């Protein structure tokens, strides 16, 4: 994230002191760490009061949250497993956001990606596992990519609001999945849980060695870093941000806005589609209605909490994964209902959104004497 510092020559001239220079150079970065951190602490504080109202000790709450999410090696794996799909689905919202688009249909791209990946695996049962896995990844990314590109195309060429269209496409995607799973692609042996045939144990991609965490986490981190480089360190990314800042200005200077929209939407969908492929190839082993677990929707929350910054998505996804992992312990030890975790997520969301108002207003971070 670039900070809004004055140009270095001027900075050196007016504030020779090392401290001020440091703040001028890194004040923005510190701000981006400090403000969300404070928002998080505030949200946890309010949630503690909420829990105290129900007669539970907030200190127990914080202890169990820490223990359930990060307290043991098992808890870490639990957290990371839950975070893995969220990084990929969050990118589905964060990438189009660079163009000023609000895409909330990652769930649909995930489902279509999972279907495409399953279809590829079932069609290629003769091939060696590595080939099948690569084909599944490619099919998942193309399937998901085209799905979100459809929203981008509707926006660019038909003027349809991409938020609405991407959301509605989720339901169409789910209907297609249910139709195929209960009809043409159904394994006749799946009696009470309509499912496709299994892709085969040999074609599963397994876990990251030494852990229980599947490869979706590694794919997500690589994709998030690649997205960050693409957006902030390439000409393409610069053009995207210009278009996102002012689309008319971008057109006037001759940027191919249509091409930008279609490419970014494809990449966004491909990311969610890859999440779908991983769910099939690392977790479920086949496609059925279990895949619609809401990862696409939680991804929207992650993207907004990360302020649409691809790098920030990684820690935010881990944080939400941790909240979800510790939710179980809160239910079991404190007897809180599952909804209390949603209350916490809601409080965090409100705090982070409200904290937007504070950016640029913390005097001591501006390096002014």
């Amino acid at each position, binding site marked *: 994230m670039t900070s809004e510092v004055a140009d270095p020559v001027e900075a050196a001239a007016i504030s020779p002191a090392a401290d001020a220079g440091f703040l001028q150079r890194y004040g923005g970065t510190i701000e981006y760490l400090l403000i969300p951190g404070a928002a998080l602490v505030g949200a946890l504080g309010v949630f503690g009061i909420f829990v105290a109202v129900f007669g539970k000790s907030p200190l127990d709450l914080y202890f169990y949250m820490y223990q359930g999410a990060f307290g*043991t090696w098992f808890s870490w794996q639990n957290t990371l497993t839950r975070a893995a799909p969220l990084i990929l689905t969050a990118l589905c919202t964060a990438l189009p956001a660079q163009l000023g688009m609000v895409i909330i249909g990652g769930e649909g791209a995930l489902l279509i990606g999972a279907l495409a990946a399953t279809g590829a695996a079932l069609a290629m049962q003769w091939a060696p596992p590595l080939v099948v896995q690569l084909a599944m990844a490619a099919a998942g990314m193309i399937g998901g990519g085209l799905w979100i590109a459809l929203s981008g195309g509707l926006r660019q060429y038909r003027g349809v609001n991409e938020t609405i269209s991407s959301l509605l496409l989720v339901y169409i995607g789910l209907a297609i999945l249910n139709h195929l799973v209960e009809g043409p692609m159904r394994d006749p042996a799946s009696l*009470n*849980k*309509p499912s496709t045939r299994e892709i085969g144990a040999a074609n599963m991609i397994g876990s990251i060695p030494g852990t229980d965490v599947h490869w979706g986490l590694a794919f997500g981190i690589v994709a998030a870093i690649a997205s960050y480089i693409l957006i902030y360190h390439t000409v393409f990314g610069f053009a995207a941000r210009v278009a996102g800042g002012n689309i008319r200005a971008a057109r006037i200077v001759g940027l191919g806005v249509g091409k930008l929209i279609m490419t970014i939407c494809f990449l966004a969908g491909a990311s969610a589609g890859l999440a779908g492929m991983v769910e099939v190839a690392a977790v479920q082993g086949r496609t059925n209605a279990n895949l619609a*677990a*809401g990862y696409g929707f939680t991804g929207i929350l992650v993207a907004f909490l990360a302020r649409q910054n691809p790098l920030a998505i990684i820690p935010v996804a881990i944080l939400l994964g941790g909240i979800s992992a510790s939710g179980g312990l809160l239910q*079991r030890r404190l007897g809180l209902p599952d909804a209390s975790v949603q209350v916490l997520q809601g409080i965090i969301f409100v705090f982070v959104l409200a904290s937007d108002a504070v950016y640029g207003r913390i005097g001591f971070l501006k390096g002014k004497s």
Partner: protein
Amino acid sequence: MDFGRISRRHLLQGGAALTLGTALGARSALAADTTIGFIYVGSRDDYGYNQAHAAGAAALKKLPGLKVVEEEKVPETDAVEKTMESMINLDGATLLFPTSFGYYNPHMIKMANKFPKLRFEHCGGLWSDKDPKNAGSYFGYIDEAQYISGIVAGYSTKSGKLGFVAAKPIPQVLRNINAFTLGAKLANPKATTQVIFTGDWSMPVKEAEATNSLIDQGVDVLTCHVDGPKTMVENAARRGAMVCGYHVNQSPLAPKAYLTGAEWNWEALYPKFVKMIAAGESIPNFYRGGLKEEIVKVSPYGEAVSAEARKAADDIKAKLTAGTYTIFKGPIVDNKGKTVIAAGTDRAQKDPELEKMDYLVEGVIGATS
């Protein structure tokens, strides 16, 4: 599992878990502080599927020396694997009841292989010889209770039109619709059952629409097979129709409209399981039963049920409980005119053909696809 990072208290618990696991593996009696984990796919107080299991868990809580931990709203993804592991690692659970159908394969199978000394009991799955020996599946022939509901409904209807709000056209659901209809025809040979499939297990809006639409078509007694019958029961009662419940007793929701209902009897089965373990017996890996085995039961009759209906229903119930009555007795014709069970063929409770049911009997208005 890395014990080095766990606090001393949990180290002790973990140690206790290992000891207990060994003890269970050696089939000795239950130790004084056995922990049992229950996992639900929906909320514990849904007046339906999950509440029925929670009632079973509550029955275990009353037994001395047992600790029950529960987690609700756990999706059928790797989240449930992590929940099981968390109950094992952090709570020391040695017996687990993941109660939703989609938890079975691959999730519970994976955990049963990973923790061979612990016991896993699944509701609804079809355990086979290929599955781990420490895993088991149990289920009830609730169609017997639906048959009784059908008899009561057949006597109570004035229009001769019954309604069935169903989730998906899968064998378990079709069997309930068929049993309900056959029961109703026993009382009123001209009775028909109009069925509406909502497409998923928990779709309150569609369930309400289906209920209203059925009543608009002249239906005056309704029942259902969805996860939470609350929506159907309350809406039907508000419209002046009568209802037969499902999963648990919903008469508190509609005291006047409630005729009877098909209920699970997990509060009888779960203590039985625990006693079997304590006595050193092994629970059969494939465990099934109906009214006779006290796995299902029929709700007490509501005030609107006539003496004639009570007598007819009690008569059949006594025969079913004695094990001398067959519901699916040929000849049975489906609603397309095809003979599905030939004359002279008795398909008794445990007949595997019934587990593959893919038809609706004569008298049902609706289609399986």
